[in-house]
């Protein structure tokens, strides 16, 4: 098992946001997290990542068999967790190129990126000038998403979480992003040979046309209300909304 979350409860600013969360993800699997606005999807991400604001008040998180519940974000990331954010902050004076050097494990004093990173930057449509820009400062919505994916490609995590990588991105760019997300999730390998895994938040599910998922979970009011086949669940949500979906026979019998 790559990720094993048991009975997790999380508080943010003294408020209980997540409760009774059980979630397991195997090597090579991609899971999708669905749910209405404010249901706690981003909170679950941040909790897995270990941001201090998200207080784990109950339960545990195991990663590669190790209990990481009390580890810092840095320690978790060093063990192979990566994330692309929904709304990352801008940092003045820290440019994307410098960040990419750190993320790809390159000596920051070297003038140029590694040829691999240069190649990837081009693929994600960033030119030299853009790489010199302060990270996220004045980036357009689409540029933010592409820069997040590029940074993940530099990091090469074993388990990647994507918080709405497709929101605010035009169709052409969704396909471009999906292609790289597939790289991060070993989709170019046969299912049995995949090692890298992921958890994907999406509202519209549009990106699922390009990125295959093994399992979907619906988060409602801080609880996982339903889990199952991504296509079926999406179909239900489209037809009956989140509420209708979690009331369907499959989920009701499960809980």
């Amino acid at each position, binding site marked *: 098992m790559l990720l094993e979350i048991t009975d997790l409860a999380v508080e943010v600013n003294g408020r209980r946001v997540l409760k009774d969360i059980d979630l397991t993800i195997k090597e090579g699997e991609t899971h999708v997290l669905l749910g209405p606005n404010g249901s706690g999807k981003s909170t679950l991400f941040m909790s897995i990542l270990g941001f201090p604001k998200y207080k784990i008040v109950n339960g545990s998180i195991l990663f590669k068999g190790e209990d990481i519940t009390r580890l810092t974000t840095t320690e978790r990331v060093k063990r192979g967790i990566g994330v692309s954010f929904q709304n990352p902050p801008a940092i003045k004076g820290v440019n994307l190129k410098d960040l990419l050097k*750190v993320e790809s494990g390159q000596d920051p004093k070297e003038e140029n990126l590694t040829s691999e990173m240069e190649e990837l930057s081009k693929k994600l449509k960033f030119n030299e000038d853009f790489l010199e820009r302060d990270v996220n400062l004045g980036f357009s919505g689409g540029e933010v998403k592409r820069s997040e994916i590029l940074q993940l490609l530099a990091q090469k995590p074993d388990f990647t979480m994507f918080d709405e990588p497709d929101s605010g991105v035009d169709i052409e760019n969704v396909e471009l992003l999906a292609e790289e997300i597939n790289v991060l999730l070993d989709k170019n390998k046969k299912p049995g040979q995949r090692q890298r895994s992921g958890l994907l938040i999406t509202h519209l599910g549009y990106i699922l046309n390009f990125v295959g998922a093994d399992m979907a979970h619906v988060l409602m009011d801080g609880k996982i209300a339903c889990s199952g086949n991504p296509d079926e669940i999406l179909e239900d949500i489209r037809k009956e909304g989140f509420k209708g979906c979690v009331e369907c026979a499959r989920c009701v019998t499960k809980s």
Partner: protein
Amino acid sequence: MLSVRDVLQKAEKAKKRKAAIGSDIDIDEFIKEDKKEHETVDSIQDVPKKVKDTLLKVGVDTSEEERAGSFLQMDQSNIYSSSISDSIELMNLEIALDKYNWLDQYMWNVVSPDGDKYTAQTALREQEEGTKSGYFIRSKPGTKEVFPMQACMFIGDETVMQTAHNIIIAEENSELHVITGCATGDDIASALHVGVSEFYLKPGSKITFTMVHNWAEQVEVRPRTGITIDDNGTFINNYILTSPVKTIQSYPTAYCSGKNSKAIFQSIQSGQKDSIIDVGSRVYLNGENSAAEVISRAVSHDESKIYSRGHLAGTVPEVKGHLECHGLVLSDDSLIYAVPELEASAANLEMSHEAAVGKIDEDEIYYLTSRGLTEEEASSMIVRGFLSMDITELPPELANETKKMTDMSLEGM
């Protein structure tokens, strides 16, 4: 213009006068060394290896590659000066005064000898002991040398009071770049540096003056700087201080007297240990259509205190000025005190200021930890980013050099 007698009289009267701001220093605690104490060197390469390394840290390259010339003052002794470029003259002030009888007019003209006891002491030493230490730099009319002159004030002996008087003249339509580094030998337990610098920008000229300070923890520093800018002249001052110092207090003042004259001050300060840094920039906008920009970035570590001052005074219509001070307070025991002042005594002018002092945004730190940096690495990356402002209006050769100097200073932090 002040006569020698006026200077003496004024200095005599002011020799005990405390400075308007900053802690007071008892000058009698320091030794006045003779100007011949250190022997001159034939080549700047002849300075000891340790000194060389320190010089390099403040941007003074003893290889003299890509430099228009070099000047080195060790304590009170002017031990080296070389002028490589044909466009620029560089020599000891004493020699220059002998050579040019017109130079008297430029002495104590834009810095007053009775400003406080530091200027007074410098003037008295010149007049009474004949200690005329410091440099004279003059770019010839119509010349544009892209490589910078480099000058260094070095304190090598214990408890000395180093005084220097520098005169920098950019003749009409010339361009002059100066890098100056100030540094101390690392075994100095106490010393005082007083540097009087007077800049004269003739019509159409441009000076960039980039200064890196690397003093020791127990050194008191009192630079006194005045700049006068004629029609269409541009003065750009860059100041970098990232190493500990006991106290520094300076308030360089530019007079934009000419039509379309312009002054830009950019400074980067990082307070370490219990340093007290009180640095400001003041510009009088007296010329038609003159403009000024004062930008500073300050971070306070440990128990340091940083007073970041700025003062713009617009005295005629249609002038423009902007003050900007951003500070990050990185330790609870440290302090940043931003004092932006705007003084407008004419209608129809445009002056503004922007000051923001705070702490590092936690979200920025977390973002970087999510990329594998530790919290310490993340803060240091953010702080460096914060301080590494783009210094504007330098020729490409110097922009690179300045960036290198900034990076080096920030790395040593």
